[in-house]
Structure formats: C-alpha cells, structure tokens
C-alpha cells in the first residue's frame, strides 16, 4: 500500500521538463506558432545586445529566417559580441534556468535566464532537430561549433557534435535553430515589428534582417555611443522579501548582523543598521548565518520602521531624449511625422527599487487620424509586444485625459484615437513583470504615476506645437486678407465708382492688431541656429518677456542679443517697447546636434495678453 502522498510524489517526478514546458507554453511565450518565432528571435537578440554592451562592443546583429517547409523555419541570429567560452556553451543554450543574472539587481534585458534555452527546447520538441551554436571569443582563438539537444529528463545539455572551425569574425556568437512557426509581417506583433521597435530604443545597434523571401532590411545605427554600463546595486531594505532576505543572510560572509546589514544593503549605514537591530530587539553581534526565521521576520518588519535614504539611482541607463527622438525619426521616416516630442523623468523608486520613465509621442504625417493610437511599450530597451491590456503603461495611458492635448477619447478615459504613436520606456534594476513571459509590467502605483507625468509633459509639447500651427494658419489667413483681399476690394470698388484708390494702411493695422512671432530653425555642421522674429502689428509700443524652451542634453552656443536670463530649461529675453510696425530678431545656437534633433521652438510670453500674440503661448511659470 502506498500513501496518497507517495503516489503524488511519483506522479510529480514524472513531470519532465518537456511537460512543464507544454503546460506553461503561454507564460513562456510559445503559445502560438507566430509568437514562437517572435519569442525565439527576441530571446536571442536580447542576449546578443546584452553581451555586446557588457563587453563594450557596438552591436552588429544579423537575424535571418529561412523557410524549410510550409510551417518550419530556420532561425539564425549572429552577433559580434565577446563570444562564449566552449565550456559554457551547452549550459547557456541547453539548460533551463541557467543564467548569470538570476539574482543580480542590475538593469539588463534578460532577468530570468529561461529565455534562449526555452527556444532551444521548443525547437527540439517541434522538429526533433538539434540547435547549432558557433562562438569565438577573440582573434587568435579558434571558433567552436556545438550541436546540442536538451536531455529533457535531466534538464541537462546533450552534445551531439563539437568541432573547432574557422570563422572570419574576430569574435561573436551564432545560433541556428529550426522550429515550427508561422511568419507574419505588417503588424506590431511580428519579427519585423519587434526588430523595428528594438532599433528605436537601441539607437547604438546595427541590425540586419533577412526575411524568408530573401528580402533584406537594415536598421541603421544612429549613434556610435554605447549606453553607459548599468551598475549593479545592492537590494534596498524597503523592497526586500523575507525569502530573499533569509537566503542573503545564510550566504553572507559578514560576521555580525550589523556589518551584514550595512554592507549588503543599499542606504544602510552602520548607524542605521544598529537602529534596525534595536527595533527588532536582536543581538547585533550574532552571525547572520545563524538567525532564525523568527529573527528574520523581525528584521524585515523593522526595515519598514526606520527612515532610510532612497537607493542610488545612477545604476540606471536611460536612452535619453535626443536618442529616442533620433530612433523614432529614423524608424518612422516613411510616415513623415509632423512632430516628435520626448520627455525624460528623473529616477524614482518603488518598494526600494529604482526605476525611470522616458516617453515619446510621434504625431501627424501619414498616421491614420481616426484609429486608436499605437502604443510602443519597452522595458530595459526590450519591446513588449503582447498582453498590452494588462500592462501598467497601458493603464497609465488610459487613465489620462488626452482630449485636452488634441486627441480624441470617449469620456476622457481609455486608449485615445488620433494620428499618434505613444512610446513609453521603463528602465529599472528589477522590472515587476506580471509573468515569466515578461510581456506586461505589473500595476505598480509609483510607475503608473511616473508614466502619466512624463506623458503629460510630452503631450503638452505636442499640444504646444498644434496650437502654434493652428494659430499660424489663422495668422496666415490674416496676411492673405491684408495683402491680397483688402487691396482688391479697394481697387475694385474705386474703379466701379470712378474714384481714386483709397490708402488702406490704417485699416490693415486695425485688422491685424497682434504681435506676430515667427521662428526658423537651421542646421549646419553639428550646429542648430534658431532665429525668432517679432513684429508689432498693434498700434501702440509693446513690452513683454519672451521665453524660448531649450531641449534636454544640449550645449548652448551664441545668444543674440544678450538674454536677461538663461536657465537649464529656457532662455528669457525682455522685449522693451517694440514700436508699431517694428520687427526685431533674436537668436541662439545649440552645439553638437544632429539634423532633426531640434526642429521648432516652443515659445512663451509673459507680461502681455497672449490673445494679442500669434506664435507663442502663455508662460505658465518655471
């Protein structure tokens, strides 16, 4: 007689890796044949980008899909990264849950280490064919070529072939795997869509994509600067879970509890460590390896009772406003967008974990005006393609009133409609995904708030552009009126009556009755020159302050005439008594820019009724 528990245990043992995989296809991202292809490419490319960046190499990645059969494809992903030493190859590619990043608190693409080996397993389960990995770690080293399978019973790699071979590349890794799949294009959820999105947020990468029909697409690199290498940080007490805490304590080399807390956690000084231990009512000199579950609980509780500094945030590696704009401009070129606005928030913290939000909005051009806006979600430079509805980014977008920024939205809630694409990138040392497939970010209040704040800023810039455009059209109408229509009326009516043509200057001033502000942005040799002209079409002299907004991450050149104030965000000139019909010019230069980095000025006025001004908005304060 076996007990029930024994029976269950037997059954449990029988669940192989393959079965586990089969049951969890959805959370691993292999639930449909279309998605399987995308997920596999995604895992391989994410690894390639991470490897290149860690080694300080500008990524040059090839992705090729070959059709083997009606529903079978060969995926090839090749990089110029540092390569993988021979011994590690089978473990990296053919063993589930094997990765160097599993416990680390550092901004990176992969977080769980289930990715690429899951693709290898899927390949093997659907075609029975092995995966071929070629890797070379540098000039003067041979390349190794391994043919691998996963032993699904033991979750161990099985090496079928292992040979040394010649490879032109100085270093790099190439993976070839066959799988059942189906290839689609022309939508966001496709290999092409994934790579395009990847190119936007990885402007330092050069990606070549060869489609099954042989069509070759190149995503060019827009910057030669690698993103700064993110730093690894220690966990912050506010976000620690009991289990992790116990594990850390058991593995700690510190001799005393005080030094354990102060050396292995962020923002904990020796002073604070003592305070925590005192609140927990423990002996500061005991070894962390020896604490009981009860002690651990008391410490974790005590963490919440002390006031600690936020964790360091210089561990994050954001993309930056200008690079987001360049990435968007390059990939959206075919849409000839009318305006691109971007925003970057300062780092923020949820549960002791630093994160940061960056956003961009592409507006107008050939984008459809009556459809839902497209949302591009990113986490640590990885596009999120599925489960849009479950993601905190989508939630943030839905909970904003977009109507005030010129998009349509029923009842001021939900995904807005209009000719726009909304991009949101979240970087963090630990992205709180809703599941293993890493497609949606969990509903964290702090993150939603930051997403909304950033998008509001971005949308304000877009709105500024739109209302400026709108007012310019109106103003242009007035110019047509005074320069064409009015003289015609004067001429025709005098002709009919046989009288001399009357002068119309006074009537023109009466009709215009505004301050007209126009601006022009010129690019030349890495310099952008912005010229602002002001004409007084009112019948009295006018005085006011003019503010010109400055872009993020810029270097100011010459400002003419001298400005009354130059701040991080703006330049301010005092305009003193500009006379009727007088025109004055202001200008400033931005250095180290590329064409398209700064395309139009956002101008504000203060000290004058904005109704009387065309070309600038009301100044809302710093």
């Amino acid at each position, binding site marked *: 007689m076996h007990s029930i528990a024994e029976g269950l245990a037997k059954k449990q043992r029988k669940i192989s890796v393959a079965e586990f995989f089969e049951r969890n296809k959805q959370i691993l991202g292999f639930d449909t044949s279309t998605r399987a292809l995308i997920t596999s490419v995604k895992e391989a490319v994410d690894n390639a980008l991470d490897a290149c960046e860690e080694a300080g190499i500008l990524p040059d990645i090839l992705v090729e899909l070959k059709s083997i059969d009606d529903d079978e494809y060969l995926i090839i992903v090749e990089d110029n990264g540092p390569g993988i030493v021979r011994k590690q190859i089978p473990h990296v590619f053919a063993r589930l849950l094997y990765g160097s990043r599993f416990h680390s608190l550092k901004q990176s693409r992969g977080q769980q280490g289930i990715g690429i080996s899951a693709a290898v397993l899927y390949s093997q389960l659907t075609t029975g064919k092995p995966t071929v990995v070629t890797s070379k770690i540098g000039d003067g080293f041979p390349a190794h070529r391994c043919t691998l399978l996963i032993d699904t019973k033991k979750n161990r790699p099985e090496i079928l072939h292992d040979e040394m071979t010649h490879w032109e590349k100085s270093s790099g890794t190439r993976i070839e795997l066959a799988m059942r799949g189906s290839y689609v294009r022309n939508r966001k959820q496709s290999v092409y869509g994934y790579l395009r999105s990847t190119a936007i947020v990885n402007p330092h990468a050069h990606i070549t994509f060869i489609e099954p029909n042989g069509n070759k697409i190149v995503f060019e690199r827009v910057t030669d600067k690698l993103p700064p290498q993110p730093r690894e940080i220690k966990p912050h007490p506010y976000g620690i879970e009991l289990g992790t805490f116990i594990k850390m304590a058991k593995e700690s080399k510190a001799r005393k509890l005080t030094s354990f807390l102060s050396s292995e956690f962020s923002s904990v000084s020796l002073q604070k460590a003592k305070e925590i231990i005192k609140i927990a009512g423990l002996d500061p000199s005991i070894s962390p390896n020896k604490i009981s579950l009860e002690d651990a609980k008391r410490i974790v509780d005590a963490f919440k009772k002390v006031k600690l500094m936020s964790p360091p945030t210089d561990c994050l590696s954001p993309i930056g406003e200008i690079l987001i704009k360049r990435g968007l401009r390059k990939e959206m070129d075919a849409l000839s967008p009318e305006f691109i606005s971007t925003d970057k928030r300062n780092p923020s913290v949820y549960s002791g974990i630093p994160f940061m939000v960056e956003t961009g909005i592409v507006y107008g051009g050939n984008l459809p005006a009556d459809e839902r806006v497209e949302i591009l979600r990113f986490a640590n430079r990885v596009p999120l393609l599925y489960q849009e509805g479950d993601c905190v980014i989508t939630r943030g977008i839905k909970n904003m009133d977009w109507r005030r920024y010129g998009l349509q939205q029923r009842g001021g809630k939900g995904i807005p409609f209009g000719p726009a694409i909304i991009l949101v990138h979240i970087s963090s040392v630990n992205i709180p995904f809703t599941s293993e497939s890493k497609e949606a970010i969990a509903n964290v209040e702090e993150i939603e708030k930051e997403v909304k704040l950033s998008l509001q800023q971005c949308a304000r810039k877009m709105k500024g552009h739109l209302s400026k455009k709108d007012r310019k059209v109106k103003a242009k*109408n*007035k110019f*047509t*009126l005074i320069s*064409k*229509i*009015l003289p*015609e*009326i*004067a001429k*025709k*009516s*005098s*002709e*009919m*009556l046989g*009288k001399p043509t*009357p002068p*119309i200057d*006074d*009537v023109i001033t*009466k*009709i215009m009755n505004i301050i007209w502000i126009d601006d022009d942005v010129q690019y030349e040799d890495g310099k952008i020159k912005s010229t602002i002209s002001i004409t007084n079409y009112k019948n009295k002299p006018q005085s006011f302050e003019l503010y010109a907004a400055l872009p993020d991450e810029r270097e100011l050149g010459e400002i003419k005439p001298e400005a009354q104030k130059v701040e991080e965000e703006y330049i301010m000139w005092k305009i003193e008594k500009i006379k009727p019909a007088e025109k004055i010019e202001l200008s400033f230069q931005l250095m180290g820019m590329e064409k398209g980095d700064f395309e139009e000025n956002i101008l504000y006025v203060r000290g004058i009724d904005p109704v009387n001004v065309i070309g600038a908005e009301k100044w809302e304060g710093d």
Partner: protein
Amino acid sequence: MTVADRNRAAVEEMMKIAEEIYNDLKNSRIPELVIPSRTKSNIIFDERHRVWKYGKNTSTRSAVSLAGAYMLLRTVYTIDFIKKMIDQKKSSTLRELYYISEGWGEGKFSSQDDSDRLAEDLEILTKKLREDMRLRPEEDGARVIGDLVVEEITRKGDKRRIHCQDDVGDSGYSIPYNVEKEKVKIKETNAKIVMAVETGGMFDRLVENGFDEKRNAILVHLKGQPARSTRRFIKRLNEEKNIPVVVFTDGDPWSYRIFASVAYGAIKTAHISEYLATPSAEFLGVTPSDIHNYELPTDDLTKEDIAALKSELSDPRFKDDFWENEIKLQLKMGKKSEQQALAKYGLDYVTDVYLPEKLAEMGYEI
C-alpha cells in the same frame, strides 16, 4: 414701371452698397455689411402681410475675418457684373453667375451655394428682387392646367393670349421665371379653386381623370420645393382673382415644408415673403390623420424624417394646433405615405372619393 425701370432702380441700390464699402476704407473703418440672420430662430410673423419675415437679429460680414473679406470682395465683383450685364440688356442664370466668377481672381466663388446666397443677400440689402437684377434660376416655373387665360409678352415683344386648357398640351402652360405684371397678365378665369400638387405623377393623374374640368380647378404642379415664380404665380391667382388655394402633397415632413413655403414663406427667402407667400393657402393632405383614416400603405420614418419632424415642432411657422397635433401623431405612428398611395383603392379613387371628401371637409363646395 417697365422692366427697364425696375432694372435701373436695382442697379442704383447696388451701387450704394459699393459706395458704402469704399467710404469705409477711405475713412479708415473696417468695411462691413449688416444683414438679417437667415435662420429659423430669426423669423417673425408679419401681421400686416400675414407672412413670416426676418426678425431683428443681424449678422455682420466684416473684413476683419478672411471669410468676411472674401464675401465683400465677391459682393463688389458681383455688383460690377450685374451693372455691366444690365447695361448690355442681357440676363444670366445663377449658374452662369457662378461660372463667370472664374475670371475674378481672389473674388471667385467657391461653390454655387455661395453665389446663390450672395444673390439673395443683395436682394435683402437692396430690397430689390433678383429678377430685377436679371438673374434667373436654372429651372423655369412649373406647369399649370385649368380654366385660365394668361397674356404673356414673348421675347419678340408680342402679346400672346394662352388658354391653359385649350391652347396647351397635356403638360400644360409652363410658368416663366419672371411672372411680374410687365411680363405676364392674368386674364379671365372661372375656376373655383387652385390646387397645388407636389408630384408630377399625381398632377398627371388628376389631368387624365379630368379633375380640372369636372371640378373647375386650376392645377399647378409644384415640382418638389416650388420655384419662386411658381409661388409668385399662385399668389397672384389668389390675390388678383380671389381664388382659394389648397396644397396637396405627400405625407412626410419634407412635404409640409413645401406647403409652408407656399403659405407662410421660406426661411431662405423670408425677405420677400410678401411677394411669394399665399397666407390663405390651406393644406389638404396627405395628413398623418389621412394615413390613419384611409388606411394608406406606409413606409417607416427614417432617422432624417424624425429629425425633420422634430425640427418642425420648434419652427415658428408650424406653431398652431393643427400642425402640432398632426406632427405629434406622425411621430407616434412612425409612418409616412406618398400621395400616390391612394391608388390602393383604384386609379379614380383620388378624384372620385378622396379629394371631394377632403374638400367638403374643408368647407369647399365644388
């Protein structure tokens, strides 16, 4: 007053407008023209003429806006064109006015609606008729059959007497665009009633059944929303010969508007309602009550029909018990019928039963 006198008077009034614009510019004023608002909310009942006319609300066409400036430029061009046309003793259609503006540069009309509207604006501003400016509509007035003699001045200047039964074919006498006394005189008639009929099909049915002779009626085909000359002609028959007018249309909201323009005046032409409207004209049918009483074949009201009926409930011209009851009844039924639906009971039913019954009900002994 001859036709030429009337033309001269119109030109004189128009030149005053051009002068007003010129003087504004000369005196450093922004040129503008003030015109009564031409909307449903700005029509009031004129007790003296018993028609609906424009009220006190005005709209200003000012050169301060681009649209206003364009309108003023088009106005001076149009005045110039009409003046030259009259000098050369020519006339033009409203459509020709639109096309001729092609050569006006910035003064070109963007659509014929614009030019038609400007012609009406000029009528309002000058208090002269479009016909006096020698502007004609595209289509002539409708057809007339009945015991009536008219005397028309032909384009050769001869007088011609026409008997509207004996001297015309089955399609009747065709009403010209200008029906003023200088062009058309209404001579003898023994008719007891003028019946204005909306559709050509019903008009032909009444003619074929000899309704004009048997019942001594002058039949006028309205051709949908009636042309100005048709309405003017009906009004003159009513006033000069003292013949009552009844209007026979389909039973739907659009037909009630046709009746309203005959009896009360149209919103678009409220400035000349006293020339065009026949206040004593009565609506014969098809009424929503008829649809019910005669059990006529029906169609469902469309969304547009319902909106039109509701709009009529807020139209001052329909503010009386008869219309309010009928419109509400129709909204309740959700149905409409055409006048030709009476054929349900045979081709003679309309002339032998329906019309005699309805006329008797309305107090006419014919």
